[in-house]
C-alpha cells in the first residue's frame, strides 16, 4: 500500500492560506489504512482548521468529504459540486489523489495535506515499513522474497557491503537502523538451501523500467474501451 503521513498543521494552514471556503477531501483506501487521510482524519483536520481560524479572529467555512479512492475519476465525479463551491481543496489523498483532483477540476486550487512517502506495509499497529521501490522489473524470485532495491540503502545486487554488522545496515542509529537486506537474503536462501541463486555475479540493472527511464505508463489494449463513435 501507499504509505503517507500528514504534513505539520502549520504547513497545511499556510498552504490553505486565506481561502474562506475549504473542502477537505479524504480518501478511503491506502491513506485510511495508514491513518493519515481517511474520513476520521479529514474530520479532525476540518475541526482544527475551523478552530484555528476562529482563534486567529477569522472565519473559515470548512467542510469534509471522503471518497472511496481519489485516483479514479468516477469517484471524484460525485464531489464536483462541492469542489466548485470551494475556494481551496485540501486533498488528504496520496500524491496521486492530489493530482487526480487537480486534473479533473482544472479551475480548482488544490493543495496537499499529506507527504506521500513510500510503498510499504504495516510492521505493527502504528508502524509502517518500506518494501517496494516500483523498479518495474521484479527480482524477488532470485532473492528469496526480499527486495534489495527497496531495502538495501545502496541498492546492491551483489551485497552485502562491508558495513553490514550484526544483521543491521550501517545507516541510521538505534531503533531506526534497518535490517541488512542482504543478511536477510543470505539467511533465507541458506535456510532453503538455495544459495546457488546468489553465487553468480548479478549484472547491472536496467533502470529503464524504473523512474530513471522517465514517467511510466502501462497500456492494456485488451482492456481499452471503444471510444464513442468508434468502429467497434
Amino acid at each position, binding site marked *: 500500500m501507499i504509505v503517507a503521513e500528514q504534513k505539520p498543521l502549520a504547513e497545511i494552514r499556510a498552504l490553505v492560506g486565506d481561502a474562506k471556503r475549504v473542502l477537505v477531501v479524504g480518501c478511503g483506501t491506502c491513506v485510511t489504512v495508514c491513518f493519515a487521510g481517511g474520513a476520521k482524519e479529514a474530520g479532525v483536520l476540518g475541526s482544527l482548521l475551523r478552530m484555528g481560524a476562529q482563534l486567529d479572529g477569522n472565519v473559515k467555512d470548512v467542510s469534509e468529504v471522503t471518497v472511496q479512492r481519489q485516483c479514479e475519476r468516477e469517484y471524484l465525479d460525485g464531489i464536483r459540486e462541492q469542489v466548485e463551491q470551494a475556494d481551496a481543496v485540501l486533498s488528504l489523498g496520496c500524491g496521486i489523489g492530489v493530482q487526480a483532483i487537480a486534473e479533473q477540476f482544472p479551475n480548482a486550487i488544490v493543495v496537499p495535506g499529506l507527504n506521500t512517502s513510500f510503498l510499504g506495509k504495516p510492521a505493527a499497529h502504528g508502524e509502517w515499513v518500506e518494501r517496494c521501490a516500483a523498479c518495474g522489473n521484479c527480482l524477488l524470485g532470485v532473492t528469496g522474497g526480499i527486495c534489495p532495491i527497496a531495502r538495501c540503502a545502496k541498492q546492491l545486487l551483489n551485497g*552485502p557491503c562491508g558495513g553490514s554488522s550484526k544483521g543491521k545496515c550501517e545507516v541510521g542509529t538505534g531503533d531506526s537502523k534497518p535490517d541488512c537486506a542482504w543478511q536477510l537474503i543470505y539467511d533465507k536462501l541458506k535456510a532453503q538451501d538455495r544459495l546457488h541463486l546468489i553465487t553468480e555475479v548479478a549484472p547491472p540493472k536496467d533502470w529503464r523500467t524504473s523512474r530513471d527511464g522517465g514517467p511510466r505508463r502501462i497500456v492494456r489494449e485488451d482492456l481499452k474501451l471503444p471510444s464513442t463513435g468508434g468502429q467497434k
Partner: protein
Amino acid sequence: MNASNGTTSRLASILKHGHFAVTTELGPPKNADPEIVRAKARLLRGCADAVNITDNQTAIVRMSSIAAGVIARQEGLEPVIQMTCRDRNRLAMQSDLLGAYALGMRNVLCLSGDHQTFGNHPQAKNVHDIDSMQLVQMVVGLRDRGCFQCGEEIKGDNPRFFVGAAENPFGDPFDWRPYRLAKKAKAGADFIQTQLVFNVPRFREFMRRVVDLGVTEELSILAGVGPLKSPAAARYMRDQVPGMDVPDEIVERMEAAGRGIEDKKARTAAYRETGIQICVEMIGELREIKGVAGIHLMAIEWEDAVPIVTERAKLLPRPALEPETSACPPPH
C-alpha cells in the same frame, strides 16, 4: 592470475614477481590546494609499491581521487584510484576512467562507498547505478574485451587497469564473506585490500576458507593494517565502527602504554610508539599466513607513521623493477 594483461602497473608487476606487496593511503585535502597532496606524496615516496588515493571517504567532499592521483604521480608515486558507486553512474565512471588512464593512472579500487548520511552532504541523492562487483566487471571489460559496459567496442586506446576491490573479513554474515570474495574473483578482480585486521586468529580462519575455495589462485589479497594512535582510537574502532573487530587485549595494551606517565606529551608519544609496535608485530604475523600476498597500510591522518612502520617491519627498500614495467616517472 591475469595481472599483467597489458597493464604497466607497478603493483601488478610486484605481485607477478612474487614480492610481498605494500600499498598505503593518501587522503586528498578538503580544498583545491595541490601543495597538500605534494607534501603527503613526498612523505610516502619509496615506502610503498602503490598508494591509494581515497574518493570522498566517509562521504565527505574532498579533492577528487583522479585529480589528486595525477598530482601524486608527478611526485613519483604510483596511485591506486578509488572509485565509489555512491557518487557516479556508469557513464560518469567510464568517462572518468578513460580520462584517468589517459593521465597515467594504472590501478583502480572499486568500492560501494560509505552511505552519504555519514558525511557532510547528507541531503544528496545517492547514485548506486551499479554496485562494486559490477564495477569490477565493467573495468575488467574495458581492459580485456575493449568494450564499454553497453557492449559497444572502444575504438582506439582502451584503458587497461589493474583492478582491485575491498573485502571486510569481519563483516556479517561472516560465513558468506569468503563466497562473496569468490564472486569478486569471478567478476575479474586482480587484487583485494581488506579492512583493518586486528583479530589475527579470526583473519587466519577467513584466509583458510578463502584459500580452500581457490580464490587466492585468481587474485592477490593484501591484508589491511594500521597503527593505532591512542587507546581512545582503539576503543572507538572497537565500539563505534560497524564491521571492525578489535580484540580487548589490543585496547588494553594501548591503555597500559600510557600508565604512570604524567606528562601529556610523553604519554602521547608512548601511545604512538605502542601503536606502531603493535602494527609492526601484526605485519610479521600476517606475512606468515598462507594466501596473504601483501599488506595495505592505512595510517589515517598520520602519514608520518608510514615510513616508520615500513622501515621497522623490514619492508624497505621496495624492490626495484625493470624500468619499462613501471608506470611511474623517475622522481626528480
